[in-house]
């Protein structure tokens, strides 16, 4: 009953939206992600990036004469909210969406976008399945997948740190566990090191000393962690307090300044992968300066990826001449666009061609690129 109602309402929404499009209304772009809650620091930079670029485009007369209108929806990275957010966007006639931010929320929203033929482009959702499974042909992202990221982490751990006994820990959630499983597979395939421990920890637990003792017991010489910064800082603090000084390598969920702020002195020396450093790219500098002017601080996580996503999407709409999903998709796959990461386009799965990762290390309270 409810399902029928949902389908009817989506149909109605689509019909309504088509009618609007013919009336020469502004181009509607949805922006969905975490704008409040504890993961807002991942989502707000994307919102800002979209707003800055759209402001520029509208100031220059819009795309093919139509202004862009942003429809902003906050889902706090919660899958259960993301579904209703997606439905809301679809029913307000949105044909293209920038978002979502977290992989879990993105996965929850994508079936709704797929059924409504809405194109979604995420600056930060890295779960490999989202593109690789082929389930969501209308999904694109401007960040390397976790599989690519895990490859960087493992290569660095094996070849630069020369670790032989590795403990792989994750937070049992979509993102962290996915990444950890890829790391496990890559280490095993390489045959160069042994995984002595592969375990998930309970998110939010007040103390992780038991798992730290276990890492010690198995005499691991490096720890790879898949997950976000709150758990990472608790684990690394406990490791250092227990006088365990082996390298700690993590992912872009940890490559966030909040991690350094929270873990303090224990953050020193921690490695994390993050999107390649684009501080020298002129487009990157341009938008970062604009961000600083309007917000008075450095842009946070995934800002460059969000700039890239917004540029790629608006460019594709301009090249396609409309927000017709097929035409936009063709443009995304074929038309190269200038972004902070250089010229990029998308492969047939929706993963970006031309965006890689770098390894960073916390040195004197700052993330410094080491590779």
């Amino acid at each position, binding site marked *: 009953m409810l399902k029928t109602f949902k389908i009817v309402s989506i149909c109605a929404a689509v019909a309504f939206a088509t009618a609007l499009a013919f009336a020469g209304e502004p181009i509607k772009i949805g922006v969905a992600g975490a704008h*409040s*809650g*504890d993961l*807002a*620091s991942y989502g707000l930079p994307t919102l800002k990036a979209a707003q800055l670029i759209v402001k520029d485009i509208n100031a220059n007369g819009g795309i093919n004469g139509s202004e862009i209108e942003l429809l902003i929806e906050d889902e706090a990275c919660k899958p259960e909210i993301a579904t209703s957010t997606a439905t809301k966007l679809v029913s307000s006639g949105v044909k293209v969406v920038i978002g979502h931010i977290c992989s879990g929320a993105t996965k929850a929203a994508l079936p709704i976008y797929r059924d409504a033929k809405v194109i979604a482009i995420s600056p930060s959702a890295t779960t490999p399945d989202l593109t690789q499974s082929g389930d969501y042909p209308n999904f694109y992202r401007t960040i390397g997948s976790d599989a690519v990221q895990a490859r960087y982490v493992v290569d660095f751990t094996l070849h630069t740190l020369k670790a032989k006994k590795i403990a792989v820990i994750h937070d*049992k959630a979509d993102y962290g566990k996915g990444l950890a499983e890829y790391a496990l597979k890559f280490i095993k395939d390489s045959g160069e090191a042994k995984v002595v421990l592969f*375990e*998930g*920890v*309970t*998110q*939010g*637990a*007040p*103390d992780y*000393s*038991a*798992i730290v*003792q*276990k890492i*010690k*017991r*198995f*005499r691991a010489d490096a720890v790879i962690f898949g997950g976000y*910064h*709150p758990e990472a*800082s*608790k684990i690394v*603090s406990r490791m250092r*307090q*227990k*006088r*365990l000084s082996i390298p700690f390598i993590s992912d872009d969920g940890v490559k966030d300044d*909040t991690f350094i*702020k*929270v*873990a*303090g002195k*224990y953050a020193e020396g921690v490695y994390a992968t993050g999107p390649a450093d684009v501080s020298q790219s002129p487009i990157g500098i341009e938008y970062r300066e604009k961000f600083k002017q309007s917000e008075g601080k450095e842009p946070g996580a995934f800002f460059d990826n969000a700039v890239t996503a917004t540029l790629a999407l608006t460019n594709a709409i301009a090249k396609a001449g409309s927000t017709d999903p097929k035409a936009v998709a063709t443009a995304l796959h074929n038309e190269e666009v200038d972004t902070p990461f250089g010229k990029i386009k998308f492969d047939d799965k929706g993963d970006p061609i031309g965006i890689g990762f770098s390894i960073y290390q916390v040195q004197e309270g700052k993330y410094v690129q080491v590779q």
Partner: protein
Amino acid sequence: MYCYAPMEYFIELTFSGLTRGSIYALIALGYTMVYGIIGLINFAHGEIYMIGAFTALIASSVLTYLGLPLPAILILAALAAIIWSAAYGYTMEKIAYRPLRDAPRLSPLISAIGMSIFLQNYVQLAQTADYLPFPALIPEFDFLEPYAGIVGSTDLVILVVSALGMIGLMLLIKYTRTGKAMRATAQDKKMALLLGINVDRIISITFIIGSGLAALGGVLIASHIGQINLYIGFIAGIKAFTAAVLGGIGSIPGAVLGSYILGLTEAFATGYVSSDYEDVFAFSLLVLILIFRPAGLLGKATIEKV
């Protein structure tokens, strides 16, 4: 296995378990006290713990700015947190539970859940949703340095404080007039009222003590894990509640015993099996104990009063 003394590993895990256990105990004491007196599961108790930690963070920032020495900051910040949270506990009882005292049992429970959501959102709006670093207020003890791999100074402080808290509460309930009045209220509210005990006041005192303990827990635990955010009360609260039920909700030594059993089970499950199954073991144990002792380990099976 792995040329690492099994005995040493066992001791390390035991201490990990005791640390977790005493963290749970600090929160579980408040749950069990309130339940013992008015038979209400105060779901907002975890939030009082969170507010205590936030208050301590604000107080300690101000005190650090004034340049006080570390032990003074710890004590003053803890005091501020206890007083502030006790005020919250007192007000919460007046607003959310007292009007519902004669209502069906489910109503105050729903009210408690509402209070918990309200307080979380209030802190999110009034403070922040971000993770904040919490300063290490507990100093590093030099004499513990040789044993740093096994037990840290924060572990030790939390262990001692939760033990003292339990003993203090038991003495209070056994030997003071207030304690006697508390026991009378717990046994039979109407009879206590007839005997001239100010039941409302006793219930308020219970909430004040319970909230103060939660705040103390908040300060110590936050300086142990070094970070706070508005959700810390939720998971800690659920685990502490589990511990209180395990030990026999309403019983004070039961709450502490339950907390240690839960903490140790989790540590050994992680250490000898896998941390993937930590919660599975903890909750299987809970189910097992409740099958054989429905009132918990030290709980008294009470006959429902008609």
